[in-house]
C-alpha cells in the first residue's frame, strides 16, 4: 500500500467540489442550528430541491440560468412550507416535520416513471452542459501527480469554493449585525426575545429560508459535478452528515463549517483508502480482498 497515494486521494477529495458542497451545506445548517437554534432534520431536502430545480428546468428546455433561479425559488418555497406551520410551535415539531417532509418529497420525486418530470428512479442526467461549456480552463490536467484535477473538476471546484467564500462572508455580515443578535437571543431563549418585542416567528422563518437557499446551492454543485440527479442521493443520512461536519468544525463559529467539511472529507477518504489498502495487503485477517463499495457510489 502506498500511503502517499492514500493521503493524496484524501486531500483531493477534501479540497474538491464535494468538500466545497459539504461546506456550503454546513454553512446553511450553521445559520439554522448554530445561530438560531432551529433543529432542522430535513436539511438534505434543500439540497434536493436546489438540484432538482436546476435539473428539471434545463431538462424541460429552459436555459441554465433559469434552472439556478428555479432551484433558489424552490428552496425558498420549501423553507416556507417547512416553517409556516411549525415555527410557531416548539423546536421538536420542526425536527419532525422537516425529516418527514424531506422524505415525503423524495418519495414523490422517486415515484414518477422515466418520462415524468423528475425521471423517477432514473433521475435526470446531462443538464449542466451549458455550465461546462463556459469552462475557462483549457483541457488538461491541473496539479501534481495524484493531486491533479481535470479541467472540468477544477472548474466546478473553483465555482464551488467561490460560493463557499461568498456564503461565509454573507454569514459573517449577517450574524455580526443586530439581526444576528436577535437570532442568537432566539437560540438562547425565545420567550425573552418575544418579551422584548422581537417577532420571533419572522426571524426563524428568515433564518430557515436563508440557510435553505445556501444549501440549495450545495445541492446544485453536487448535481452539476456528477451531471446527474437521483432521488437516493438525498437520503436522511445526508442531513446527519451535514450535522457531523458542522459539529466537527464547531457550531456557531464562522469558519467552522468550512474546516469541518475539509476535515470530514479528508478523514472519510483517508479511512476508506487506508482500509482498502490494508485489506489488499492482507493486514486485516479474514477481511475480503474484494474491493468494498464506497459509501459515496450510487
Amino acid at each position: 500500500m502506498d500511503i502517499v497515494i492514500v493521503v493524496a486521494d484524501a486531500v483531493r477529495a477534501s479540497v474538491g467540489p464535494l468538500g466545497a458542497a459539504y461546506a456550503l451545506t454546513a454553512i446553511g445548517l450553521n445559520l439554522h442550528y448554530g445561530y438560531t437554534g432551529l433543529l432542522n432534520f430535513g436539511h438534505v431536502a434543500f439540497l434536493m430541491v436546489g438540484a432538482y430545480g436546476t435539473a428539471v428546468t434545463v431538462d424541460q428546455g429552459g436555459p441554465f440560468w433559469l434552472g439556478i433561479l428555479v432551484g433558489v425559488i424552490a428552496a425558498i418555497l420549501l423553507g416556507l412550507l417547512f416553517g409556516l406551520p411549525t415555527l410557531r410551535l416548539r423546536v421538536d415539531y420542526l425536527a419532525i416535520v422537516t425529516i418527514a417532509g424531506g422524505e415525503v418529497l423524495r418519495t414523490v420525486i422517486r415515484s414518477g416513471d422515466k418520462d415524468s418530470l423528475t425521471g423517477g428512479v432514473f433521475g435526470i442526467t446531462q443538464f449542466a452542459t451549458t455550465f461546462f461549456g463556459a469552462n475557462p480552463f483549457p483541457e488538461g490536467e491541473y496539479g501534481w501527480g495524484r493531486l491533479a484535477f481535470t479541467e472540468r473538476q477544477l472548474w466546478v471546484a473553483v465555482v464551488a469554493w467561490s460560493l463557499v467564500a461568498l456564503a461565509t462572508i454573507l454569514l459573517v455580515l449577517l450574524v455580526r449585525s443586530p439581526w444576528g443578535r436577535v437570532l442568537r437571543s432566539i437560540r438562547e431563549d425565545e420567550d425573552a426575545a418575544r418579551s422584548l418585542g422581537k417577532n420571533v416567528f419572522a426571524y426563524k422563518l428568515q433564518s430557515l429560508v436563508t440557510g435553505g437557499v445556501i444549501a440549495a446551492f450545495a445541492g446544485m454543485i453536487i448535481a452539476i459535478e456528477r451531471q446527474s440527479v437521483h432521488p437516493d442521493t438525498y437520503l436522511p443520512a445526508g442531513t446527519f452528515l451535514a450535522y457531523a461536519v458542522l459539529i466537527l468544525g464547531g457550531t456557531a463559529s464562522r469558519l467552522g463549517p468550512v474546516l469541518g467539511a475539509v476535515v470530514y472529507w479528508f478523514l472519510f477518504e483517508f479511512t476508506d483508502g487506508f482500509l482498502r489498502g490494508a485489506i489488499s495487503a492482507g493486514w486485516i485477517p479474514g477481511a475480503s480482498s474484494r474491493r468494498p463499495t464506497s459509501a459515496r457510489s450510487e
Partner: protein
Amino acid sequence: MPADAVFAAEAVTGSRKPDAILVVNGMHRSFGGLAAVDVGHLEVQRGVITALIGPNGAGKTTLFNLLTGFDRPDGGSSTFDGRPVTGLPPHRIARAGMIRTFQLTKALAKMSVLDNMMLAAPHQRGERIVYAPLRSAWRHQERDVEERAGSLLEKFGLADLRDDYAATLSGGQRKLLEMARVLMAEPKMVLLDEPMAGVNPALVESLLHHVRELRDEGLTVLFVEHDMDVVMGISDWVVCMGEGRVISEGRRRSWPPTKR
C-alpha cells in the same frame, strides 16, 4: 409626586382610577376545570407602583401571561394605553410599551451582558434582514444603542461586567440585568414577576431603589411579590388576588384594605 395621585382612587375592588394605563375587563382563563384567572374589572393607574399579591396559585403569573400575550384568555379583554391588546402576540404588546420580566430570570446566557442590553433597544434598523449585511445602514444607530446600554449598565452597577457572558452573573446580578434590559426597551409600563425572589438582602435594597426610580421617571410598574416587607416598602397601591379573582385592592397605607 405620582404617589399622591392614588388618593384619588377608591379602595374598592375594581375601582376606577384617574388616568388608568391598563384596563382589564372580565378576563378569564381556565385550565381544565380550574379557573386560574377570573378578573372582573381591574384598572392600573399610570405612573404608580402597583403590587399584585396573593397566595401561590392565585393566578398572578397567569394574569401576567394573559396581559402580555404569552397566553390567550378564554374571554374578556384588556386595553393598554387606550388600545385593545387582547389576542395580540407578545412582541406586538411589548412594542406597544408593556414589557414584562419572568419569575425565573431569562438572561441570555451565551450572550454578553452588553449584547443582552443592546438586543432590547426598539426600532433597530439593523434587525431587518435587508439592512443587516450593510453595516453603514445601522452603524450610527448601533453606536447610540451601545452608548445608552453602557450608561444604563453604569446605573445598575454592571458596567464592569459588560463583556462577560450573562451566564457568569449571580442570581441577583441577573435580576439587575433583566431590569436594566427592560428599560433599554423604552417601555411605558413594566410588569415584574417576583423581581426580588432569590436575591440576597444586600441587592434587594438596590433593586428597590431602581424600581422606585422607574416610577419617578414616569413609568408604571406592576409587580408580583411575596415578600410583604418589599410590598409595603415600595408599592403605592396593592391588589390582592385569590383563586383567580381580585379579592381586594387599596392604597398601601390603608392596609388592611376595606372588605368588598
